[in-house]
């Protein structure tokens, strides 16, 4: 039996790695998750036959209720809310790893200090990933405010709590685990997870979620070592490494370092030097005029952002694009790497609305084309089209690659109101001579535009 379980874990790990590989290419991505799913099924079923397992009834109840809740919530959630769902499921995994660590530590029959150390490290990382992911979820879901929550001495306090957690952890290894020490240790670790996430702004959450994802992977790997479970060791370590790389790639796409994301409190009200240097005024436009501009253009580039996604306007957007194409207007979509909430999120949202893959262009492909565009339509995007990222060294988004919307002959900005974007800074583009502002909810405005375009 033991060999059979090991063999099935071996197969599981092989399928996981191959599944992950398939998921990294668009053509095979779908089959990748199915391979990984099969692997998970094999591992769970064979684990049921682990020699000497008790509490099988309890186990089945826990599995089925967990699966039922996850499947229900995962199916129901809107595509725009995917990032926080990833956060919460990730937190669950971290919590599970931490739970295993608590069990191992309070069981008291672990005598090897090496094993205790592995449990402690996994427990620390897992707890941080758990409570941090919960805060990330709450911020993205709007349960607590998305802007950074900061106070004086915060970094010092966070450091003290982390050091205390590590010291308590070491004492568990050297002095032997006990109830009181174990509880203190997990309390401190959970508190640290909360405190380190609070000062991070909503715009940076994807990077943080990705980091917590990597942390959960590592926690699972460490607990795998503690339990002697090879499937957990390899799968956890693979995810830990892959997640770390993904986190770096995401941070790079926003031209930020991971340290800057974690400690920069990005998106806090920014006192920007030279904010007064913006010339010109906001010039509103009516949907009728905007429709005429688009309808008689030769080339229109659409720049969708998160505002479009929250308004669930992707279907209307596609309808408008189709109408324009019928009038022989060339329509292209410019997708910024961090449009939406996560890299690639916007592509998923537009795909959901049936926008063909070939119409989507990423930053490098489209940026040279703005000069030849008659109209660039910015829908619910802000920071990713702010020309200050190129010029204004004092700006918090300086150096971030942006879409060169300001080079288009005309720019129409569809926006709810006059507020600033996630980075909390003014957008120079909106004040340019060729820019017109079309205020309103993206869904409603696009509806009007569709009617108007139909009439020309």
């Amino acid at each position, binding site marked *: 039996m033991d060999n059979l379980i090991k063999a099935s874990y071996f197969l599981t790990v092989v399928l996981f790695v191959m599944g992950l590989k398939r998921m990294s290419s668009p053509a095979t991505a779908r089959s990748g*998750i199915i391979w990984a799913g099969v692997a998970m099924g094999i591992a769970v079923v064979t684990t049921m036959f682990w020699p000497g397992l*008790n509490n099988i009834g309890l186990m089945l109840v826990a599995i089925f209720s967990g699966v039922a809740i996850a499947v229900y919530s995962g199916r129901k959630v809107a595509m725009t809310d995917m990032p926080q769902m990833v956060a919460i499921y990730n937190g669950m995994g971290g*919590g599970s790893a931490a739970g*295993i660590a608590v*069990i191992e530590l309070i069981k008291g029959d672990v005598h090897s200090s090496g094993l205790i150390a592995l449990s402690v490290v996994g427990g620390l990382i897992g707890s941080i990933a758990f409570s941090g992911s919960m805060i990330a979820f709450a911020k993205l879901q709007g349960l607590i405010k998305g802007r950074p929550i900061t106070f004086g001495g915060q970094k010092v306090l966070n450091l003290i709590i982390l050091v205390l957690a590590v010291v308590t952890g070491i004492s568990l290894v050297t002095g032997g685990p006990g109830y009181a020490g174990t509880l203190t240790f997990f309390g401190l670790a959970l508190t640290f997870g909360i405190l380190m996430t609070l000062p991070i702004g909503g715009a940076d959450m994807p990077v943080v979620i990705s980091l917590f994802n990597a942390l959960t992977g590592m*926690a699972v*790997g460490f607990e795998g070592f503690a339990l002697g479970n090879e499937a957990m060791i390899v799968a*956890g*370590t693979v995810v830990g490494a892959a997640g770390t790389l993904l986190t770096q790639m995401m941070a790079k796409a926003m031209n930020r370092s991971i340290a800057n994301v974690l400690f920069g409190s990005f998106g806090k009200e920014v006192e920007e030097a030279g904010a007064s240097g913006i010339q010109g005024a906001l010039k509103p436009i009516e949907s009728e005029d905007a429709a005429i501009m688009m309808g008689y253009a030769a080339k229109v580039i659409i720049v969708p952002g998160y505002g479009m996604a929250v308004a669930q306007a992707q279907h209307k957007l596609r309808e408008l694009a189709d109408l324009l194409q019928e009038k022989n207007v060339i329509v292209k979509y410019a997708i910024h790497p961090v449009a939406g909430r996560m*890299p690639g999120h916007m592509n998923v949202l537009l795909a959901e609305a049936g926008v063909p893959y070939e119409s989507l262009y990423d930053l490098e492909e489209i940026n040279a084309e703005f000069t030849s565009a008659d109209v660039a339509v910015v829908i619910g995007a802000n920071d990713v089209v702010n020309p200050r990222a190129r010029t204004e060294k004092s700006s918090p988004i300086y150096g971030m690659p942006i879409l060169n919307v300001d080079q288009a002959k005309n720019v129409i900005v569809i926006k709810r109101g006059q507020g600033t974007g996630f980075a909390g800074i003014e957008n120079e583009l909106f004040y340019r001579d060729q820019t017109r502002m079309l205020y309103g909810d993206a869904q409603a405005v696009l509806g009007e535009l569709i009617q108007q375009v139909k009439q020309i």
Partner: protein
Amino acid sequence: MIEGIWAALFIFMLAGFTGYEVISRVPVILHTPLMSGSNFIHGIVLVGAMVALGQADTMSGKILGFVAVFLGALNAAGGYVVTERMLEMFENKKKGGA
């Protein structure tokens, strides 16, 4: 436990490189689904939680084990559903575009 700290270290190192290599050179559009997919894969913590619960004999052990299995099941099932929904889009798109 794996025989010897060295075997463990070798596994750790090789698995780490595997994870790194498998997802390097990934197009940006797949970052989100991949994050979600790797989120699903660490749901394997479920099997560890199952063993921990199965071997628990105290009340506190059973309660913690139950919670751990429940959370692990949420991670695995939720990660799968969300990733599958995202990747479904890519498949539809291919058909639509062809």
